[in-house]
């Protein structure tokens, strides 16, 4: 694999979730986290999973990542069943989960070093490219604790993009950031996604965030975790989180979400 190919990016993958169910059993209780979830995500599609906390959306993301095993059903990535975590499906967590013993470039290199077929010089080149893409070239050799929360998530994004995955799984990656930093990251992620198409599955409980980023928003409800409704978001990009059209879409989805949450209480 040549450096040029690495920097161009691989074609994004298609994901298919086929009748996935998951229970969490402890000695005291059994929680039905996911109930018969089926879902298709097209190549290069940006999909947001939205739902109240505890609705199993993060669990579904973990299953697609290969970090959790479903009790029933399976996940197919490009017609291959997902059995383990793999380089083609990288994950960004709510915490940046950067390694404090490595500097910024060391963190971005971590996944690259596990990728065969590249020379170290090329890996360094790739890492630098992605650090530049997230705008942190001045901080290549900074220690992790010296970075702000937003910068840490940028490094985490660069680290997830660098090994050239075909799917990016994001588990509330901006939830712990302040509003201003978040807005900056929304425009960054849109810019990067347009430049380097990946299939992205993005979990959040923030409806506006979902509408700002996604092609399609999937609404979850809990007990058990189920898909309730799907919304196409036809707005042109780049989108501004403060725009009125976006707010209208978000309003519609929020109303639907509230319906399911209050309905659930009444049941």
């Amino acid at each position, binding site marked *: 694999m040549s450096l040029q190919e690495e920097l161009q990016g691989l074609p994004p993958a298609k994901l298919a979730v086929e009748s996935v169910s998951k229970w969490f059993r402890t000695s005291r209780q059994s929680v039905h986290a996911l109930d018969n979830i089926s879902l298709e995500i097209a190549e290069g599609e940006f999909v947001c999973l939205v739902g109240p906390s505890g609705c199993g959306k993060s669990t579904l993301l973990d299953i697609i990542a290969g*970090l959790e095993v479903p009790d029933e059903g399976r996940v197919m990535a490009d017609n291959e069943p997902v059995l383990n975590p*793999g380089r083609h499906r990288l994950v960004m967590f709510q915490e940046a*989960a950067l390694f404090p013993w490595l500097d910024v470039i060391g963190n971005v290199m971590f996944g690259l070093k596990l990728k065969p077929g590249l020379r170290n010089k090329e890996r360094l080149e790739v890492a630098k490219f992605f650090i530049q893409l997230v705008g942190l070239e001045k901080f290549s050799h900074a220690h992790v604790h010296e970075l702000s929360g937003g910068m840490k998530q940028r490094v985490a994004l660069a680290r997830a993009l660098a090994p050239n995955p075909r799917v990016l799984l994001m588990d509330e990656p901006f939830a712990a950031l302040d509003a201003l930093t978040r807005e900056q990251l929304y425009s960054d992620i849109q810019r990067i996604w347009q430049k380097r198409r990946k299939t992205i599955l993005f979990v959040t409980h923030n409806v506006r965030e979902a509408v700002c980023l996604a092609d399609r928003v999937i609404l979850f409800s809990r007990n058990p975790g189920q898909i309730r409704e799907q919304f196409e978001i036809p707005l042109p990009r780049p989108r501004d989180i403060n725009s009125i059209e976006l707010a209208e879409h978000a309003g519609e989805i929020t109303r639907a979400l509230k319906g399911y949450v209050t309905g659930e209480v009444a049941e």
Partner: protein
Amino acid sequence: MRRFLLATLFFVVLIAIWHFLVKAGVYSPVLLPSPQSVGEYLVGAARDGTLFQATGVTVRRLLVGYFIGIMIGLPLGLFTSASKFVEDTIGVLALGLQTLPSVCWIPLALLWFGQTESAMLFVVVMGTVWSVVIATDTGVRNIPPIFARAAKTMGSTGLHKWTKVILPASLPFLVSGMKQGWAFAWRSLMAAEIYVTILTGFGLGHLLHYGRELNAMEQVIGVMLVIITIGLLTDKILFSPVERFLHNRWGTGLR
């Protein structure tokens, strides 16, 4: 510089208090010799070489015992953290033996090995190994699980996971464990040298012991000062730079 001066001043004042206590004649000079006489003993012992020889013997024993202790303790600690079976067996054994003061090994060591270097080494290794096992085990267990998850998604498994994630992630604990191991090794060795009289090497503990036998209080205090100084120096030279590095990287520690 200011900090250095203040620290120096502190110790000068300490010695001055000692000096005046002796001058005032509150305690018998046999029990509390003056700083001068302790100084004279140290200079004399340094001149005729006994002090350096004893220090050399002691430090060599310490290093060998400590090194063996780490080589055994570190992998054992990794095993106890990785396997429930090893945790329930070796882990429990380590926990039990760690609570045993290392002096308690001396009677056994004397009977098994006689008055030999092996007895000495055995006591030091036993003093070191268990605390290193437990520190390593604690270190691995305290790694935030998110690190393991992140590493896993990037394809880090097996040996790569252990060497590139688990070991570096537990480094802060490992270093404090090694430091504790060092302190235990030092204590065990001193106990062993005081109790085990052997002819193959005359260490600081022996000097201390014979100081008592000869009622030479200036020797007792002088050797104690040397032991304290060695402890201080190893901390400052061996462990402080590593700890500074870790604080720097992890962003821990105040200031």
